[in-house]
C-alpha cells in the first residue's frame, strides 16, 4: 500500500523531561519519526517540554511546541494546529497516557484527529492489566496467577489464596513506580497501600511471584497487511524480579532452543494481533520457568520502548523510523532495509555477534534510597557493547559505563586482591561475598567474579542468584583466563 494521502499533518508527542524510567531513548525514537514522516511530505507538529532534546531542534518539525505534555496543553495545540492525525507511540508512557486522555475525553473526535500507530482499543487492551490478562486467556497463553484489587481487603484475600512472595504492580504508572515484591504480610500491606496511591485509577495487580524465572523480550513489528516480523530477541542476565531497565540484558537470546524460541515467536505474533496494534513496533515480555520451560506472558508495550532503542542499535533495524512509516500506510515490503538498501524491511535481522547492555546507577546522588534492585526501575542510564562473544561484549560494556572500571575487575580497583589474600581471610571474604549476592544490587557482577576467585562453583552461585548457569559459566571463563594471565611471568 502506498502512503496515506488523506492525512497531511501529524502531531508527534514527545516524552518530556528525563526521569528515572524514561530517558533519552524517546528522543531517539521521536527524532527518527519526525525525520521519517517529514521526508514523506507530512507537516509535523511536535510537542515536548524538554528543550534539551534533539527532536525540538527547529529543523525536525514544522511547528515545535515546548509546552507541558498534559491533555490540557496538547488540546490547545490541537485546536490551534488542527493536525489530521496524532502519533502517540514514540514518546514513551507519557505520550501514550496523554493521547489516551485526549481520546477518552472526546478531544480527538471533536477536532477530527485520528490516532495512528496504535488505536485507543489496542492501547487499552495492552496497558490495562485486567484486559490484557483476559486477552491472553482468549488466545490460550498463560500469564501469572493473580488478580486486580482496588482495596487492601481484596488484596489480603488474594495473598491468602496464592501465598508469598507476591508481586504488587500498580496500574498505569511509569517505570513500575509504586510497585514491589512482598515476602511477608507487613511488606505486603505497605506496598499495596503505596501502589494504590501511585496508580491513577487506584488499582494494583497482585501476582504470583515468578522471581528467579528466566526473562525474555521480543521486539515485534506489524504492518497494515498483517505482516508480522520479530526484530530481536533479548535475554535478561538478571532473572525475573529485577526490572528490565535494571537488568543486564543480552541480545539475541542465548539459552533457548529453536523449538522454545519459535513457541515464543508464535506467542508474540498472536499477542500483537489479539491486542490489535495495527502498525509499528511493540515490546513483549515473557518469563520462562528454568525447571520445566513453562512460558508465561508478562506484559506488552504497544509503543517503542527502551528495549526497542537497544534492539535498533543491536540489529541495525531502525524500529522507530520504520514504525513511523508503517503508521502512515506503508507495508514492510515497501520500505528498504537500512543496512542492505537493496532488500526490503520485511525480514528478521540475523546477527553474527552478541550484544550486552549494562545499566548504570547513581545511588550516591540519592542518599537513603535502598539500592536493592526490584520491579521499580532505579538505574539512570546504560551502556551497550557489541562483541563476537558474550565475554567480549560484557567487558566492553563494563568499560563503557565510565565508572572508571576497565572491565570485570583485574584493573586495580577491586575491593580485595584474592590471589594475595592470606588463607585465613578467604573464608571471611567468601562469606561476605555470598551474603551480598543474596540480594540483586548494583555491582553484583563484580561480586560474581570474586565468588569464583574464592572457589565458588557455578551451581552455588546459581542457587544464590538464579542467574542462568550459562552466563555464570562465561564469567567463570573470564576469571579462569585472568588467572592464566596472572600466572604468566615476563
Amino acid at each position: 500500500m502506498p502512503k496515506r494521502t488523506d492525512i497531511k499533518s501529524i502531531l508527534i508527542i514527545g516524552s518530556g523531561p528525563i526521569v528515572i524510567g524514561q530517558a533519552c531513548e524517546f528522543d531517539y525514537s521521536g527524532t527518527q519519526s519526525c525525520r521519517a514522516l517529514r521526508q514523506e511530505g507530512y507537516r509535523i507538529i511536535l510537542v515536548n517540554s524538554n528543550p534539551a532534546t534533539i527532536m525540538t531542534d527547529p529543523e525536525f518539525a514544522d511547528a515545535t511546541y515546548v509546552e507541558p505534555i498534559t491533555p490540557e496543553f496538547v488540546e490547545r495545540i490541537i485546536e490551534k494546529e488542527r493536525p489530521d492525525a496524532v502519533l502517540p507511540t514514540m514518546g514513551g508512557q507519557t505520550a501514550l497516557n496523554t493521547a489516551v486522555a485526549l481520546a477518552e475525553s472526546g478531544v480527538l473526535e471533536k477536532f477530527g484527529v485520528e490516532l495512528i500507530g496504535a488505536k485507543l482499543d489496542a492501547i487499552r487492551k495492552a496497558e490495562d492489566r485486567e484486559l490484557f490478562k483476559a486477552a491472553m486467556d482468549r488466545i490460550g497463553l498463560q500469564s501469572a496467577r493473580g488478580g486486580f484489587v482496588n482495596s487492601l481487603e481484596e488484596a489480603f484475600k488474594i495473598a491468602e489464596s496464592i501465598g508469598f512472595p507476591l508481586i504488587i504492580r500498580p496500574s498505569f504508572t511509569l517505570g513500575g513506580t509504586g510497585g514491589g515484591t512482598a515476602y511477608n504480610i507487613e511488606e505486603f500491606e505497605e506496598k499495596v497501600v503505596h501502589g494504590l496511591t501511585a496508580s491513577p485509577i487506584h488499582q494494583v495487580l497482585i501476582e504470583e511471584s515468578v522471581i528467579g524465572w528466566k526473562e525474555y523480550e521480543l521486539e515485534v513489528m506489524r504492518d497494515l497487511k498483517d505482516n508480522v516480523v520479530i526484530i530481536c530477541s533479548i535475554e535478561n542476565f538478571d532473572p525475573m524480579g529485577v526490572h528490565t531497565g535494571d537488568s543486564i540484558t543480552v541480545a539475541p537470546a542465548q539459552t533457548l532452543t529453536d523449538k522454545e524460541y519459535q513457541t515464543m515467536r508464535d506467542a508474540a505474533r498472536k499477542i500483537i494481533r489479539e491486542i490489535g496494534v495495527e502498525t509499528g513496533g511493540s515490546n513483549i515480555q515473557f518469563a520462562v520457568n528454568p525447571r520445566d520451560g513453562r512460558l508465561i506472558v508478562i506484559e506488552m508495550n504497544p509503543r517503542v520502548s527502551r528495549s526497542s532503542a537497544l534492539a535498533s542499535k543491536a540489529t541495525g533495524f531502525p524500529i522507530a523510523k520504520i514504525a513511523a512509516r508503517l503508521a502512515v500506510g506503508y507495508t514492510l515490503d515497501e520500505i528498504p532495509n537500512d543496512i542492505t538498501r537493496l532488500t526490503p524491511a520485511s525480514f528478521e535481522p540475523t546477527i553474527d555477534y552478541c550484544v550486552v547492555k549494562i545499566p548504570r546507577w547513581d545511588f550516591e546522588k540519592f542518599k537513603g534510597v535502598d539500592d536493592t534492585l526490584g520491579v521499580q526501575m532505579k538505574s539512570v542510564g546504560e551502556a551497550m557493547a557489541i562483541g563476537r562473544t558474550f565475554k567480549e561484549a560484557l567487558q566492553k560494556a563494563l568499560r563503557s559505563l565510565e565508572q572508571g572500571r576497565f572491565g570485570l575487575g583485574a584493573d586495580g580497583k577491586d575491593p580485595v586482591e584474592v590471589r594475595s589474600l592470606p588463607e585465613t581471610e578467604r573464608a571471611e571474604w567468601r562469606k561476605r561475598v555470598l551474603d551480598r549476592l543474596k540480594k540483586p544490587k548494583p555491582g553484583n557482577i563484580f561480586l560474581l567474579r570474586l565468588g569464583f576467585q574464592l572457589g565458588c562453583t557455578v551451581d552455588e552461585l546459581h542457587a544464590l542468584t538464579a542467574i542462568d548457569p550459562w552466563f555464570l559459566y562465561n564469567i567463570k571463563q573470564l576469571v579462569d583466563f585472568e588467572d592464566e594471565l596472572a600466572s604468566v611471568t615476563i
Partner: protein
Amino acid sequence: MKAKLVLENGVEFTGESFGAEGETTGEVVFNTSLTGYQEILTDPSYAGQIVTMTYPLIGNYGVNAEDLESVRPQVAGFVVKEYSEFPSNFRSTGSLGDWLAPHSIIGIEGIDTRKLTKIIRTVGAMRGILSTADLTTAELLARVKRSPEMTGLDLAAKVTTHEPYHWNSIDRTPFALQPQITNDPGRYKVVVYDYGVKHNILRRLASYGCDLTVVPASFPAEDVLAMKPDGIFLSNGPGDPAAVRYGIANIGKLIGKRPMFGICLGHQLLALALGGKTFKLKFGHRGANHPVKNLRTGAIEITSQNHGFAVDPNALDPKSIEITHVNLNDHTNEGFRHRTLPMFTVQYHPEASPGPHDSDYLFADFATLMASA
C-alpha cells in the same frame, strides 16, 4: 586439540577441535540461523557439506532427544566461532561435542567465522577440508582438490532410506503446532519420496491426517501408483538436482496422476520433470530469516531455507505453470503451481525446524488438494 580448515582457494583457518577427531571434506557453506543447530546438524540436506554458523556462540543449550531431524548428524563437518561445552537448558541431555564425537563429526571452534562467511559470499561456496591431523597446508590443499565437486553430485542416493517404511507419528512435545488431527489420522494415504526427508515434514503431514509410506529415492513410479495413494510428496534432499536422473524420470511418470507437493529438492526435481532448468546459486540460502512473498495473497512469510541450487522460473512454461512465491532478498524462485494439474511446490521449508512457522499453511493446502481430487 588443534584443528585446521583449508579452503580450495588456499585460505587456511586454525582453531581448536570439538566433537570427533580425524579428517573430512565437503562443500563449505554458511547458515544464518540464530537457533536450531541440532536440527541443522541432523538435516540430511546438509550431507556432503561443512556447515559454518554465522551466529558465533554455539552449543549454549546442549542437545536433547527431541530436536532431531533424522536419526543422526548428517553434516560433513561443523565450524563455529565459540563452542560452549557448558550447556544450560531444562531439556539438555548433554553437550554438543559429546554428542558429535560418537557420530564421527568433526567440529572446529575459535576461528574467524565472519571472515570465512565473507569469503564464501564473495568467492562462492567451495570445497574445504577439516582436519585434526598434523598436516601441512599444502598436503591438505592437495586432498581437498581431489574431493568431489557439488555440481553433478547425486547425494540423495546416499541419504535415502533403503527400504520403504510406514510413518504416522505426530509431534507430542509441548512445542507441537496446531492442528493435531488425531480423530481421523489415516484420512489420506500419502507416498513420500525420501531424497533426504526431515522428520518434521513427516510429523507435519501426519498432523494433517496423512498416513505415510516413505519410499526410497529410486522407487519406481509404477509401484507408487500401484499403492493407489491419495497424494505424493517429494521431499527435500542434498546435492545437485540435475544429477538425480532416476528421480526426475519417476516424477515425470507421476505428473497429473495424483495430487503432488514438493519441498526443496522435491521442488527442483518437479521443475526438471516439467522440462525446466536448475542452476547453482553462488552461496545458497541457508538460514531461518528469508523473506518470501506469496504472490497469490501478497503476504510475506519469514521462511527457513537450505538450498544451494535454484529453479530458473523463465525456463518453465508460463501457460501451464504459475509462479507463486518469490524470495524478496534476491528475487529467486521460491515456489510454483500447475495451472490445471493438482500439484504445487516450494523451495523453502514450511516444516521449519529450525525456523519460523509462517508457512505451515502449505501442509493444509496439500490436504485440501487431496480432499478435492
